[in-house]
């Protein structure tokens, strides 16, 4: 039995509804309408300019970059996160500690995007001595390619060696098959020489090309190009002998810095110490540079949102009827076919919800770009939501006409989601 709507009921309804309704009208409905009007006026809001602000939005370089990045975000990020969420939801289904795992992945949603941003500024710091990403990159690379032993070392002036464009050291004058060379090096800390490095002495003349590569610094009486007491050889330097631009022999220096290349035919040669010996060490990638900054920010967003996608999909997965799966299995389908043909189609409504939700979220990405991208590359990493703040409130901004136009554009982009919501809501009522 329903009480007929009476005056008292209406008055109560009005009283209950009024505060919330008033706030929503004043702070949401009116601003949405006002923004449309405001976007038709100039920066100061005094002159009607028609659609000029929208024209600016699609011609201004900075805004175009923001638009381009927003498109990249919308196309890439939700797909990635949904895929990760789907894979993890499936993989965790039978794991006993799935609850703990999901809790870990959900945690980033509890903390602010500013804090997450700071976390990832640290992870992607360019210095491998403070950024985890580059520390890992450097150690992985060093595990596969030995780091150059004498990074930064260069020939001592007047010692007979010159540096080539690619960083190798070569003898300036032609070398005979039975010469004795003394190749002085500098620009390297004597304390950093390998422990087995022993005192340098020039080789005795004999058969074959003989030579000494030594660090011509670090002794009390240092004479350029001459071996002094206390100076040590450089062990492990690769040596190549070239004839007419082709490598005809190779050698490596011993602990005393000496090398010997026997059995050379008569003629003239060039001795080269390849650049691998002296190349500056790999210091990782410039994550926060213009080229990589957007992928980096997307990776942080992925860290934040994957737990959300996984949890929603896992709930959907738990609701997939077992009968359908069993029927498919009885029909002889492989597990992959069951997953591809039965599970995923049954999940598709959930996957759609996840993707739509993520797209709306992506369009509003602001804090993450703002915090992770350093000021100098923020323009490269710009997105629509950030650009809207920049032009209206940011330093050097203040163009609220253009700002309103960008806000309206953003609003237009979420309108399909609004229509989607309303349709869905009406169907459910």
């Amino acid at each position, binding site marked *: 039995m329903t009480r007929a709507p009476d005056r008292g009921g*209406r008055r109560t309804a009005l009283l209950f509804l009024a505060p919330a309704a008033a706030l929503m009208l004043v*702070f949401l409905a009116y601003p949405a309408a006002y923004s449309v009007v405001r976007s038709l006026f100039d920066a100061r809001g005094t002159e009607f300019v028609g659609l000029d602000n929208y024209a600016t939005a699609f011609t201004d370089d900075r805004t175009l970059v923001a638009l381009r990045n927003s498109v990249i975000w919308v196309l890439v990020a939700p797909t990635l996160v949904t895929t990760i969420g789907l894979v993890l939801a499936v993989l965790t289904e039978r794991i006993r500690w799935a609850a703990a795992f999901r809790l870990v992945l959900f945690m980033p949603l509890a903390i602010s995007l*500013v804090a997450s941003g700071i976390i990832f*500024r640290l992870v992607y710091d360019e210095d491998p001595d403070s950024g985890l990403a580059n520390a890992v990159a450097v150690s992985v690379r060093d595990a596969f390619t030995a780091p150059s032993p004498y990074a930064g070392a260069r020939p001592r002036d007047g010692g007979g060696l010159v540096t080539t464009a690619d960083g190798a050291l070569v003898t300036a004058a032609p070398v005979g098959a039975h010469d004795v060379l003394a190749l002085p090096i500098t620009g390297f800390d004597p304390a950093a020489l390998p422990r087995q490095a022993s005192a340098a002495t020039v080789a005795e003349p004999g058969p074959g090309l003989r030579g000494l590569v030594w660090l011509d610094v670090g002794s009390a009486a240092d004479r350029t190009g001459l071996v002094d007491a206390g100076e040590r050889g450089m062990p492990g330097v690769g040596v190549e002998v070239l004839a007419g631009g082709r490598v005809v022999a190779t050698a490596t220096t011993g602990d005393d810095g000496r090398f010997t290349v026997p059995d050379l035919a008569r003629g003239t040669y060039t001795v080269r110490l390849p650049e691998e010996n002296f190349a500056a060490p790999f210091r990782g990638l410039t994550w926060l540079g213009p080229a990589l900054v957007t992928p980096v920010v997307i990776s942080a967003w992925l860290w934040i949102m994957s737990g959300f996608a996984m*949890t929603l999909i896992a*709930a959907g997965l738990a609701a997939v009827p077992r009968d359908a799966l069993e029927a498919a299995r009885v029909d002889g389908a492989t597990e992959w076919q069951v997953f591809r043909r039965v599970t995923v189609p049954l999940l598709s409504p959930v996957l759609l919800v996840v993707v739509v939700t993520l797209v709306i979220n992506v369009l509003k990405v602001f804090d993450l770009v703002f915090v992770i991208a350093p000021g100098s590359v923020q323009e490269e990493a710009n997105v629509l939501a950030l650009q809207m703040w920049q032009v209206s409130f940011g330093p050097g901004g203040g163009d609220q006409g253009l700002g309103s136009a960008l*806000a309206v554009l953003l609003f237009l982009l979420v309108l399909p*989601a609004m229509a989607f919501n*309303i349709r869905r809501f009406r169907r459910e009522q």
Partner: protein
Amino acid sequence: MGAAMAPSPDPPGAVARRPVAARVVARLGGPVVRTALVVVAVFWLLPVLGLLVASLRPEEAGARSGWWTVFTAPAQLTLANYAALLSDRVMLGSLWNTVLITVPSTVLVVVLGALAAYALAWIEFPGRDWVLLGVVALLVVPIQVALIPVAQLLGGIGLYGSIPGVVLFHVAFGLPFAVFLLRNSFAAIPRDLLEAARMDGGRELRIFWRLVLPISLPAVASLAIFQFLWVWNDLLVGLVFADESSAPITVALRSELRQFGSNVDVLASGAFLSMVVPLVVFFAFQRHFVQGVLAGSTR
């Protein structure tokens, strides 16, 4: 729209009941899957651990070596950064501002949202369905749309830059979701129960307070926790509507970012301080929080 479309979400606290992909997993090999999942979990935890450790290392160490060196040299850990933070009036003041903004925003959204939701669920009046539809439409309105108009509006009444202005904005933007979520929850209450209370001569406010709210406490809790964390973690609204003296901690942290590299000690400890409350709330109320996020994710 979250709440309407999301299948009743499984919180991370609940293990999935049915092993749908059991054999997929079996084929991939249990140990392989488990190892992969452990690696993923480590990937998720390491960045946070990095921030925590960075916040516990002295300023000089931060510039010289990576935080992971603590595993070999744990002696470098110190609480000095936190001691400095506690005497930093800007940081502490902004943390207090965050509290002053978050608590009223949460309380007001819950109270005003619940009242409106009750009217929309249980009191009949003309145009009710249209109001409801309007609320659903407002769910996805981007904050950006309101920044410029509301800045002028608040400027007009002298609240621009103040904490009450920030609170008003948060309340208004929290309301559509609050009304939507609570109305769905209230509407699920059996009609008989309400009619009986009305027969007994209960006034609407009394029924609302004594019957409807207690029954819907889980939804109210989810909303409160979601709204609390949403406001606590906000940067954009604080950035636009708060002046220096009323800025929340997110805004204070972000202005510290300009000297990134030279002040990792301040940034890391400040960021961690700002995370303490959300993390406590998260671990204490994970179930409600997950439900709130899943329902309110489309905002």
